[in-house]
């Protein structure tokens, strides 16, 4: 048999029916993750047609997008003051109860961002197909799963049939050679990749990230990278599973146990792309040449080294690209050739499905520990799940952040999506560890610079966009 890529192996193993000239493939879905915002209309359709969820045991629901992250009341509950959000959450509870779907309800010990809880529970495993009505489902590809976001019509399709109609995507190898320097992280790699290929460069492709920098990376770093595949236009990004992956999965609640785990690992070892497997496209990034990255514009492709200068639209030849740059800089209130370093910010947001895991909080805490958040700066720290929150508290990280003057919040999407009360005011600048800097994404009129947790933490203590390497230099930094 011809050498196969990781993607092709997972794809072929899930074909209920292969693609023909006239018909898309029927692809089996192993795990369907569900949240409150993109599912209600699908449940409505199920009810209207009198359908059952085919595999409730392969479906898991949580609440994250419209949920507040404000501290709990005296009753121990998270107050939901927005009546529309409350109604949406109530609908979610009823839908899950009626259709027999397990739900991690708001504030309970397992609730959290949908892309944090899957891996945390060990329900995200190598070789699986995973979908969710959320474009950042690409996160789960870090485990060697084929995972992608779907629309609400497809949510209903998976509920009813556990299958999707799909045309086979193309493959792109993304090689990240060499090792990262201290202070440069997975987030900087993915911002570098997107700056290179552009926000539409990956459209129609499944990316496979490979190379020394990826191999040496923690699962959390790999999730950060796969998470933002969609910001380069790719619905899915994958990383071949290895010992790091197996160790992460082992012992988690939904992971196989004992001999079953050993058998699963033996199977997972066959997943990596074969020697000589061909990709439709290839890009390369040299990790050792990377410095911390930051975005200046209104899409994630508008990124640059933190030491760089904002581009000059007058030097762009394509008329529509020049217009887009003009529009972005006007919205961001930036001048051509301006440096972002030293620019005053109002808010620092540490959170989101990109960077809210325990590793992200630990990294940021290394910089924050014993220091104060600059006067006039609001720093929000929003753990990705209740379990991440509990772990951080067990390690005393909550105290590190609180003593510095940062807000320690409940788990959820928070200011990444600004539909839950956490948002910027018009004109405010934020350094955010999230994934999207679109106009208004973090609140109408808000202006977002995307960066790593280290850059966010360094910026929080100075109040100005800061290269974390200048802070790290002052301390021991593993």
């Amino acid at each position, binding site marked *: 048999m011809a050498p196969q890529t990781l993607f092709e192996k997972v794809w072929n193993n899930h074909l209920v029916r292969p693609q023909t000239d006239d018909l898309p493939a029927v692809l089996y879905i192993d795990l369907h993750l569900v949240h409150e915002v993109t599912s209600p209309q699908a449940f409505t359709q199920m009810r209207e047609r009198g359908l059952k969820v085919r595999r409730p045991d392969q479906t898991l629901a949580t609440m994250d997008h419209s949920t507040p992250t404000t501290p709990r009341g005296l009753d121990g509950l998270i107050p939901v003051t927005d009546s529309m959000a409350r109604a949406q959450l109530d609908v979610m509870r009823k839908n899950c109860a009626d259709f027999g779907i397990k739900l991690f309800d708001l504030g309970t010990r397992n609730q959290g961002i949908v892309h944090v809880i899957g891996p945390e529970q060990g329900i995200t495993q190598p070789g699986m197909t995973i979908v969710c009505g959320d474009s950042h489902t690409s996160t789960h590809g870090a485990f060697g799963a084929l995972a992608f976001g779907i629309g609400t019509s497809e949510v209903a399709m998976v509920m009813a049939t556990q299958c999707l109609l799909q045309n086979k995507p193309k493959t792109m190898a993304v090689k990240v050679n060499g090792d990262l320097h201290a202070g440069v992280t997975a987030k900087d790699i993915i911002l570098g990749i997107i700056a290179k290929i552009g926000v539409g460069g990956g459209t129609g492709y499944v990316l496979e990230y490979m190379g020394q920098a990826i191999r040496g990376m923690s699962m959390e770093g790999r999730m950060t990278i796969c998470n933002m595949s969609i910001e380069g*236009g790719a619905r899915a990004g994958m990383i071949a599973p290895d010992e790091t992956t197996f160790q992460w999965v082992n012992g988690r609640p939904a992971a*196989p146990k004992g001999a079953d785990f050993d058998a699963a690992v033996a199977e997972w070892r066959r997943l990596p792309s074969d020697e000589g497997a061909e990709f439709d496209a290839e890009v390369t990034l040299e990790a050792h040449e990377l410095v911390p990255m930051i975005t200046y514009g209104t*899409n994630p492709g508008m990124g640059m080294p933190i030491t760089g200068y904002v581009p000059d639209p007058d030097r762009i030849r394509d008329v529509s690209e020049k217009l887009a740059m003009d529009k972005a800089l006007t919205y961001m209130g930036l001048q051509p050739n301006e440096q972002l370093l030293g620019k005053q910010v109002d808010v620092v947001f540490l959170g989101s499905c990109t960077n809210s895991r325990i590793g992200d909080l630990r990294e940021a805490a290394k910089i924050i520990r014993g220091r104060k958040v600059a006067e006039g700066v609001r720093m929000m720290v929003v753990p990705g799940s209740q379990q991440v929150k509990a772990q951080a508290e067990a390690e005393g990280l909550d105290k590190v952040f609180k003593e510095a003057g940062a807000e320690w919040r409940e788990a959820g999407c928070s200011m990444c999506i600004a539909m839950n009360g956490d948002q910027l005011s018009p004109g405010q600048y934020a350094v955010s560890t999230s994934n*999207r800097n679109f106009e208004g994404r973090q609140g*109408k009129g808000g202006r977002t610079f995307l960066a790593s947790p280290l850059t966010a933490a360094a910026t929080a203590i100075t109040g100005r966009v800061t290269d974390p390497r200048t802070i790290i230099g002052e301390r021991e930094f593993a």
Partner: protein
Amino acid sequence: MEPIKTFSGKVVALPINDIDTDQIIPARYLKVTDKNGLGAACFSDWRYESDGSPKPEFPLNKPEHQGAEVLIGGHNFGCGSSREHAPWALMGAGFKAVISTYFADIFKNNALKNGLLPVVVDKDTHEQLISLAQEDPNTQVTVNLAEQTVTLPDGREVTFPIDGFSKHCLLNGVDQLGYVMGLDDVISAYESTHAKRISTLQTS
């Protein structure tokens, strides 16, 4: 879904690259549990002042563009999130088709599932359509799905690509969910030969 037939409609241009789904429908409107009623919020942040009054200079607000059914968007239209609220909002605002040089994947899928046609044309045609829409607000185009053509006001026909299955479903009003449900035996056979990996009941 109703079958799609040939239609003619007035065009309006929004020639901005990389229009993301957060612009098409900002997240704060996603707290609904219904798909109807999103038209008024379509392009909300570009369309309204902070006091809610319409911005007169925004193309969709201009009196001469009222009733437009074909939106000419910039390159890489619909990038960003998977929210199907984006096509729901565009259709709620009266659009039947979006013409661009390039569409983001998930948006395109969602649009096709709802009968909002994503029409890809070459760069020259795209530029010509934008100029026409801006010069004469009564500019109309005819979209013929069966022939996969857009007819410009000067009578020129340009073809556009669409995958065969989506076209068949749209032309005939095929219910895709019904089609896959009809494969129940095949799905069960797959399940019986592929050991189940996980159970969400084991989460804790």
